[in-house]
């Protein structure tokens, strides 16, 4: 038990370290940017004195390291500063945008898990059959299509031709499950496509690998076959590469959502981030990148721990 706790503790410490590193990277990267936060705040018609005032207000006259530490100090307390543009708290802004993004990514994850695993397992079990070929083709295609294109095709098909779903926007879950779902279905599909394809590929590979393992031979020699074999031996073992893929793809997914949000005009984190990037709203960009990194790190932490659940060897 103690070793397990310390194991988790070590993982956590590692995660915190990673996040700190990200914060350094993010903070100093954006210092490379041309133009100065103060320029942006004061706008077109400002006088030099106004600029100086703005600089002092933003703390830009202090040494970089002090700026970083101040920022980090705030971050630790959940204060990411104020947006240079809206002058609202960055945390509030991101907090408002988070539900939309979370809804889409989580549902996309779910879709990808269900369809990707099912298709991949079917392909792996029926290796070299038509199922395998169809799934492999779709999977490669899914990875090869830019998500914004997929999104636009979905819109023209399901929003305009069939009028099943709205083309844009987001309805919070408080508006009711129906509106919420109908707004996020298309973006989720657009986002999930590439991920399902990746998951399907991994699941297929995992199943094929597992099928070739000596313990499968041993199990079959005991008389196990068909559904019994698949349920008890194949899926469980093939799950490890699939879970890994979820960890690795978490980052890609959170990146992909930026594009999808633009296509579907969803006021999520990605939209906030893009707007902030274009306006050089550094506090927002910093907070966003850091937040996404934290999410990715947490997902990987979860993936790591779920290994234990699947693979008893890591459990202790």
């Amino acid at each position, binding site marked *: 038990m103690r070793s397990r706790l310390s194991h988790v503790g070590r993982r956590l410490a590692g995660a915190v370290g990673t996040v700190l590193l990200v914060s350094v990277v993010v903070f100093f990267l954006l210092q490379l940017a041309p133009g100065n936060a103060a320029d942006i705040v004061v706008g077109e018609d400002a006088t030099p004195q106004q600029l100086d005032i703005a600089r002092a207000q933003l703390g830009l006259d202090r040494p970089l390291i002090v700026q970083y530490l101040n920022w980090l100090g705030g971050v630790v307390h959940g204060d990411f500063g104020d947006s240079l543009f809206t002058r609202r708290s960055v945390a509030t802004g991101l907090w408002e945008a988070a539900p939309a993004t979370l809804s889409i990514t989580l549902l996309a994850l779910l879709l990808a898990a269900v369809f990707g695993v099912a298709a991949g397992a079917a392909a792996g079990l029926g290796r070299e059959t038509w199922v395998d070929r169809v799934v492999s083709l779709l999977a490669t295609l899914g990875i090869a299509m830019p998500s914004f294109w997929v999104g636009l095709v979905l819109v023209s098909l399901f929003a305009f031709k069939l009028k099943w779903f709205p083309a844009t926007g987001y309805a919070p879950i408080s508006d009711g499950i129906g509106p919420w779902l109908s707004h996020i279905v298309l973006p989720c599909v657009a986002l999930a496509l590439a991920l399902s394809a990746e998951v399907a590929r991994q699941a297929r590979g995992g199943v094929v690998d597992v099928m070739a393992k000596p313990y499968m031979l041993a199990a079959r*020699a005991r008389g196990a*076959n068909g559904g019994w074999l698949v349920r008890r031996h194949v899926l469980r073992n093939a799950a490890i590469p699939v879970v890994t893929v979820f960890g690795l793809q978490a980052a890609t997914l959170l990146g992909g959502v930026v594009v999808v949000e633009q296509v579907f005009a969803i006021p999520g984190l990605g939209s906030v981030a893009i707007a902030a990037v274009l306006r050089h709203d550094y506090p927002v960009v910093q907070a966003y990148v850091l937040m996404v990194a934290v999410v990715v790190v947490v997902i990987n932490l979860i993936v790591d721990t779920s290994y234990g659940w699947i693979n008893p060897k890591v459990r202790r």
Partner: protein
Amino acid sequence: MKSPALIQTDTVLAVDQLRLDLSGPSEQLELVQDVSFEVRAGETVALIGESGCGKSLTALAILGLLPQAVRIAGGSVVLAGEDITRASSTRLSALRGSVVGAVFQDPMSSLDPTMTVGDQIAESRRLHLGESRKTAGERAVELLDLVGISNPRARAASFPFQFSGGMQQRALIAAAVACEPRLLIADEPTTALDVTVQAEILELLEDLLGRTKMALLLVTHDLGVVAGVADRVVVMYAGQAAEQAPTDELFASPAHPYTRALLSSVPQVGRTRQPLPVIGGRVPPAGVFPDGCRFQDRCAHVVPGVCTVGPIEIRHVAVEHESRCVHASAQFGSEPSL
């Protein structure tokens, strides 16, 4: 060789003129050919030969678990009176684990890492006897005890990685014999283990065989192991059965030059720092087997025109002793010297 009618009632396994082909996209390779032998109840038969000679494929053929590309191209495999070359795949699954059990070379990777050892041992009882998880689980604990694992109840709930190699192999043996099969096929069960552990496992197998009427088909390349446990030996060379004899007779008077060479090339404790006899040349790989005797390129007694043409038939040397060599004759003991 024998018609089914002649098979003795206590014959558990009769392999007759088995031929296994590799069917590739372009070519057909003959991997195993003309292998015939029997295993009788309570008997231990060893299948020996160098790497790649087809031992494992023969064993897998008996289990109906050949790799996809390999198929039975001829002959029959009669397991407990049933020709499995004609059996359906469901029938085969029903036979595996209940009539025939199997243990493989690498214990670590032969256990499903995500399933407890107990569950894996219980698996065949649940499949074949329809026992509930609980009953089968109880039986698994007993089986673990039987194969000499201390504290079996706790061990049944462990995962394979928590076992040492020897314990893993014990567990696999327990799983293989869970339904009291009539035949146990052990494909190099001790190759991956230390000699001390190998001794334990062999002891365990002998012990199990003593308790039940189970027969054992032991695949190995270790002549020492053969000498210790087998009643009869089948020597394979390049996909064929080269010689077959009771163990003592084989060691005392091998009738095939290959067997002889094999026996003499074993380093022995006590006979130190002397050059060992070697068999020159290499085993011909599948696909380029020469016409005639497959050992001809490496054999000191090759007679051109005799050894090099046509298929060489198995000849009886003595009772239950046969050899695929033109020099082998019924006059026991007159084999040509090396």
